């Protein structure tokens, strides 16, 4: 993880793709030059770029709806000469229970389960820590905060081997015990992946949330303290509601990050369908059945649905969160 465009306007109402970052760069909304500086060439070039950028995804989408035989023998751009439309690919990768099918259903459940707690745990712990750094005065606060901030520069690769060793020494016995007590929970469970994502997500989360929480007017907090509110009450009644936009931005960023992650899953999930997320399954399919394009295309599209839905549905939070965490990992 490392540091990102650091002082993002997390939470300030700058939303939406057009405006994102404008506050950051001092977008004084003076009257702009009405005259178009762009010429016809510029329009054509940008059109070409836009088309080039879209075509690969478009080809994948088309192919995922074509019958397997056609996908494997004809180019997707010949769809008008070799017409064919089917939902079979999606049915096959999702619902089929045959051994040859990738059976993505189980992995989707895993992805959701991992992303859920892999987001919630760092979010809550980071908000608490951010509050402490911002509003509880103690010696060494700045030093400690800078230390946590600096942790962002440690690449995940630095942490993998030792953390895996720690988990197999301390967490594995607990997992085995849990499996003995509750047999339907497999010995290989979500705990290591959740914990790993929580640990890796914390420095960025603390940093971003601190920036926001520290900007809450001191008068409000002081007034509450004078009225005899405890830190717990201030945290829940004042800080949490006011920090919601920042929390939402980070939550979305972390959710997408965990959903799209491959590295952490590879190391900590064990790779079985008990735990492995969709990305890991897809990466494995590419290796073992790289020619089954009707399945790969459908599978890849399934894995993109949630991030794309978030992208189009919650664009303003999404852009903000993503820009803030651009170099995490």
């Amino acid at each position, binding site marked *: 993880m490392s540091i990102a465009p650091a002082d993002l306007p997390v939470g300030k109402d700058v939303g939406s793709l057009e405006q994102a970052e404008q506050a950051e760069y001092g977008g004084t909304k003076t009257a702009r030059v009405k005259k178009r500086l762009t010429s016809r060439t510029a329009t054509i070039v940008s059109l070409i770029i836009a088309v080039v950028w879209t075509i690969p995804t478009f080809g994948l989408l088309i192919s995922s709806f074509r019958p397997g035989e056609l996908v494997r023998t004809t180019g997707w751009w010949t769809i008008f000469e070799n017409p064919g439309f089917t939902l079979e690919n999606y049915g096959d990768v999702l619902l089929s229970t045959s051994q040859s099918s990738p059976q993505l259903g189980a992995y989707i459940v895993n992805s959701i389960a991992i992303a859920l707690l892999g987001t919630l745990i760092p979010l809550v712990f980071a908000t608490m820590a951010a509050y402490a750094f911002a509003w509880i005065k103690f010696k060494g606060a700045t030093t400690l905060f800078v230390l946590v901030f600096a942790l962002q520069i440690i690449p995940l690769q630095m942490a*993998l081997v030792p953390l895996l060793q720690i988990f197999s020494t301390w967490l594995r016995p607990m997992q085995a015990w849990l499996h003995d007590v509750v047999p339907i929970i497999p010995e290989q469970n979500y705990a290591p992946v959740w914990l790993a994502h929580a640990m890796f997500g914390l420095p960025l989360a603390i940093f971003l949330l601190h920036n926001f929480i520290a900007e809450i007017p001191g008068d409000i907090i002081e007034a509450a303290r004078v009225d005899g509110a405890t830190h717990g009450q201030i945290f829940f009644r004042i800080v949490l509601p006011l920090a919601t936009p920042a929390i939402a931005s980070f939550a979305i960023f972390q959710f997408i990050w965990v959903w799209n992650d491959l590295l952490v899953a590879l190391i900590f999930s064990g790779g079985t369908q008990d735990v492995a997320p969709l990305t890991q399954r897809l990466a494995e399919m590419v290796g073992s059945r790289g020619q089954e394009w009707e399945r790969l295309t459908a599978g890849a599209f399934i894995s993109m649905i949630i991030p794309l839905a978030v992208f189009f549905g919650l664009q303003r939070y999404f852009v903000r969160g993503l820009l803030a965490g651009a170099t995490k990992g």
Partner: protein
Amino acid sequence: MTTEDLLGKLLQVVMGLAVFAAVVGLLIFFIDKAPKRGRDYWQLAGFLAPALIFVTIGLIYPAIRTSLLAFQDSSGDWTLDNFIWTFTQPTAIRTLINTVIWVLFVPTISTIIGLAYAVFIDKSRGEKYYKVILFMPIAISFVGAGIIWRFVYEYKSPGRDQIGLLNGIVVAFGGEPVQWLQTDPLNTFLLIIVMIWIQTGFAMVLLSAAIKGVPTEQLEAAELDGTNAWQRFINVTVPGIRGSLVVVLTTISIATLKVFDIVRTMTAGNFNTSVIANEMYTQAFRASEVGRGSALALILFLLVLPIVVYNVNVLRKQREIR
């Protein structure tokens, strides 16, 4: 997946949530009921402890341990062999060279295309939709992007219909289909294209916002002086967005140095396409060469470090100016 499996998974999530809620609940309870003596410190500990414990176990201790492992052989004796291997073995050297190629090309090309696009669509009709198109790949996982582009690079033997777009184009122009991903050194550049495809949107959005921050008075003044669009761009716009350019370049550089999923998904580092992050995984977790993996991780860290420090300095200066 059987119903029992699903039940087990649901149960895990519910239990996970319950345990987590209990931990947080207890913490808050003790924070509010802390003993009068040293109350502030108890409360502080309650708020900070979980995060500090997590980063200590998950990042601080592992980073130190990896740094030490890099200087040890498999029996735990001190040695420099891991680094000697990294800088002498042809495959390892190739990995380092590839990483350098990646970090030279991805940030520059992404930034140039992103900037050109941002300038071209600025204030044009449908600017928002143009932006969405370029920005969308960021939402897609690297694995998904890897599959999308593997499909573009797909090869079928000559005479058969090509199903990969790139070979389709080559054949349409009368060429022979190429096994793109197996062709060294072309394959590394084809993987780099995937990363550029993803990162350009990021560059474009940041630079577009920066361009809109360039004072229009300056542009108008330059126009009155009779400059053409290109001169205005070079002499007014670029200096005006220098800070953002640096941030974009450094940020993409850092992301590029750590690139793993794309290489893993598309070639798994075969055919001389490996990069440091992928080789680290291969050595430490596939070949059980923990020392070599740790050495590579340490090298990665040392490569990222100066860029991050520079990035932070630029950001701090920007803030002071404002």
